[in-house]
C-alpha cells in the first residue's frame, strides 16, 4: 500500500467499470465451461462406476490425487503441452471438479432406495428408462449439492489462472492489485468473486428447488 493515497477509491471503480465488467464476464464463462465439462466427464465416470463398482476405488484415487496437486504445479506440468492458454486453465479447473462431482453423483445414485428400484423393475421399466425417469430425478438434490460445491470451488480457483494470463476477477486481484499495491482493485476483485460464488450457490439451489418440488412435499402439504 502506498502511503498518502486513499485506501479505497470509488472513482477508480467508476472509471474502470468496463474493465471490471469484462473480467467478471470472463470469470463467469471460465467457471461455466469448467463446471459443465467437469460435470459431463464426471457423469460418464459415475455411470461407468455404476456398471462396474470395482472402478470406484481407482477413479476416486486418481481424481483425488489430481485434486491434491497444487494449482501452480499443475500449470507447470501442463504449460509444456498446451502452452499459456485458456485450454491449460480449463484443463486444470475441470480436473479439480472431478473428485467432488464423481463422488456426489455416485453417492446420489446409490442413495435411491432399493424398494424404488425394485418397484421400477417390477413395473417394467427398461434399465435406461429406470435411470433417466426414476433414479436420476430422485438423485437430483444430491447431484445439485455436488454441483454447488464444485461451482463455488471453481469460482475461487479461476482467480489463480491469472498467473497464466487468464483469470477473470483474479486479474483485478493480482495483476492490477497486488503487483501494483492497489487496494481498490483487490477489493473489487475479492468482493465480486465472493458475490459471484454466493449468487451461483443460491441460483443453483433455486433451480434445484424448482426441479424437485416433491422433496419438500412433507413440509408443504398436510398428510
Amino acid at each position: 500500500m502506498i502511503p498518502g493515497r486513499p485506501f479505497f477509491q470509488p472513482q477508480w471503480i467508476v472509471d474502470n467499470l468496463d474493465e471490471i465488467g469484462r473480467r467478471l464476464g470472463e470469470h463467469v464463462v471460465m467457471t461455466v465451461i469448467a463446471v459443465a465439462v467437469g460435470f459431463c466427464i464426471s457423469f460418464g465416470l459415475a455411470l461407468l462406476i455404476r456398471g462396474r463398482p470395482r472402478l470406484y476405488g481407482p477413479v476416486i484415487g486418481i481424481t483425488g490425487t489430481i485434486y491434491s496437486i497444487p494449482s501452480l504445479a499443475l500449470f507447470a506440468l501442463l504449460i509444456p503441452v498446451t502452452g499459456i492458454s485458456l485450454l491449460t486453465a480449463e484443463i486444470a479447473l475441470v480436473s479439480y471438479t472431478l473428485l467432488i462431482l464423481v463422488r456426489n453423483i455416485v453417492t446420489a445414485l446409490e442413495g435411491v432406495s432399493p424398494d424404488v428400484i425394485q418397484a421400477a423393475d417390477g413395473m417394467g421399466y427398461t434399465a435406461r428408462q429406470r435411470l433417466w425417469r426414476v433414479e436420476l430425478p430422485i438423485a437430483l438434490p444430491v447431484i445439485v449439492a455436488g454441483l454447488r460445491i464444485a461451482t463455488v470451488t471453481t469460482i475461487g480457483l479461476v482467480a489463480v489462472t491469472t498467473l497464466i494470463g487468464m483469470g477473470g476477477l483474479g486479474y483485478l486481484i493480482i495483476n492490477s492489485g497486488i503487483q501494483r499495491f492497489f487496494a481498490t482493485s483487490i477489493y473489487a476483485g475479492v468482493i465480486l468473486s465472493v458475490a459471484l460464488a454466493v449468487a451461483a450457490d443460491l441460483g443453483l439451489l433455486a433451480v434445484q428447488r424448482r426441479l424437485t418440488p416433491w422433496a419438500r412435499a412433507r413440509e408443504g402439504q398436510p398428510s
Partner: protein
Amino acid sequence: MTATPSAPPARTGAVVALEHLSKRFGPPGTPLAVDDLTLTIAAGEICVLVGPSGCGKTTTMKMINRLIEPTSGRVTIDGEDVMALPAVELRRRIGYVIQQVGLFPHMTVADNVAVVPRLLRWPDARVRERSRELLELVGLDPATYAGRYPAALSGGERQRVGVARALAADPPVMLMDEPFGAVDPILRDRLQNEFLRLQAKVRKTIVFVTHDVDEAIKMADRIAILRRGGVLAQYDTPDAILSAPASEFVEHFVGADRGLKRLSLGRVSDLPLIAPVLARVGEARLLVRQRLDAAAGDYVLLTDMADRPIGWLGRRDLAGDGALTDADATPGSAPLQPESTLRDALSAMLASAVQLGVVVDEHDAVLGLISVDAISEVLQSSGGSNP
C-alpha cells in the same frame, strides 16, 4: 372406500402354472432356493405363498415376472410361457406391489398410478382418465390426492396408491410381496378387508407372499406352504390345511392353536347382527334413557351425526339432563368390518370393557353388533364356515 358404480371393465384373472420350477443362486452343487415346485393357480384366485424365511416364497414369486430367472422348469400364464416375451413387456402385463410400496417419491400420486400405462404409451387422455378411475376404486378422492406427492401421504394411503398403480394397466395377474407388512395391525386389518372387497370386484389372479399364517388364512383361496429349501409342503384351501395338515412341519408351522385359527376362516358377515340401542351426540339424555328402558338393554351405542360409533354409554352415563356429548361415552373396541375375521373380532371384543363388537360399513357407519356368544357358538359347531 367410495362406492364405484363406474368400476373399470375388469380383465379377470388368468391361470398361472408353475411347472417343475427350480432356482439355484450359487453354482451347481449348492442348495436350491426353490426345489421342483409345481402348482397351478386358478384364474381369479388368491394364492398365498407362506413359509419361514429362506423358504423361497419371494424367489418363487419373482420368477413369475422374471425379476429372477428360473434355473429350470417354467411358468405359464394362460398357457403362454413367460419366457416368450421380453422381460420388461412381461412385467408391464403383471401387477406388482411390494412391502415398502416403493412409490416413486418424485412423482405425484396420479403420475405414480400412470407409470405402466405411460410405459405402454397409452394416449394422455386415457392415462389421466384411468388414473382417476383407479384412485376412486381404491377409495382416494382424485381431486384431493392426484396432485400430492408420496411424502405427504399416510402409510395406508401409500398402500392404496401402490395397489392402484399395480392395477393400472388392468393386468390379469398381480404379485403382492408382503403388501401389508409395514403397517400397524389395525390398519392392516382394514387394508386387508378393503383389498378383499376390491378383489371381489376385479377378480384378478393374485400371488401373495407373506410370512404371517393368519394373514394367509384370511386372504387365501389356496395356501402354498413352503419349507426351507423351497420345497412345497402343502397346497390346499385354508380350511383343508387347518383341518388336515399334510405333515408335522405344516402342523407345526400353522401352530398349536389351530382351533382358534379356524376362526380366521369365518367372517363377521357370517354372524347375525344384533340391532344396537343407538343415541346420537346432541340428543337429550332423558329420551335416550327411555329408549334404553324400552329395549331392556344395558348399554347405548353413541354415534356422531354420520352414524360413526363413538363409544358406549351405561345407565350411569345417562343420568341427569341435558344433551349427550362425545365425552360421555367409554370408547369400545376398534370397529369391525363385515370382512374382518372372527378371530380379529374376538380379540378386539375381549380387549374392550363392553364385550360387543361394533360392525361398520365402508363409510364407518354402524351396521350392527356382534356378541362373543355368537362367536363361541361358531367355535363349538367346530366348523367355521368358509365364505
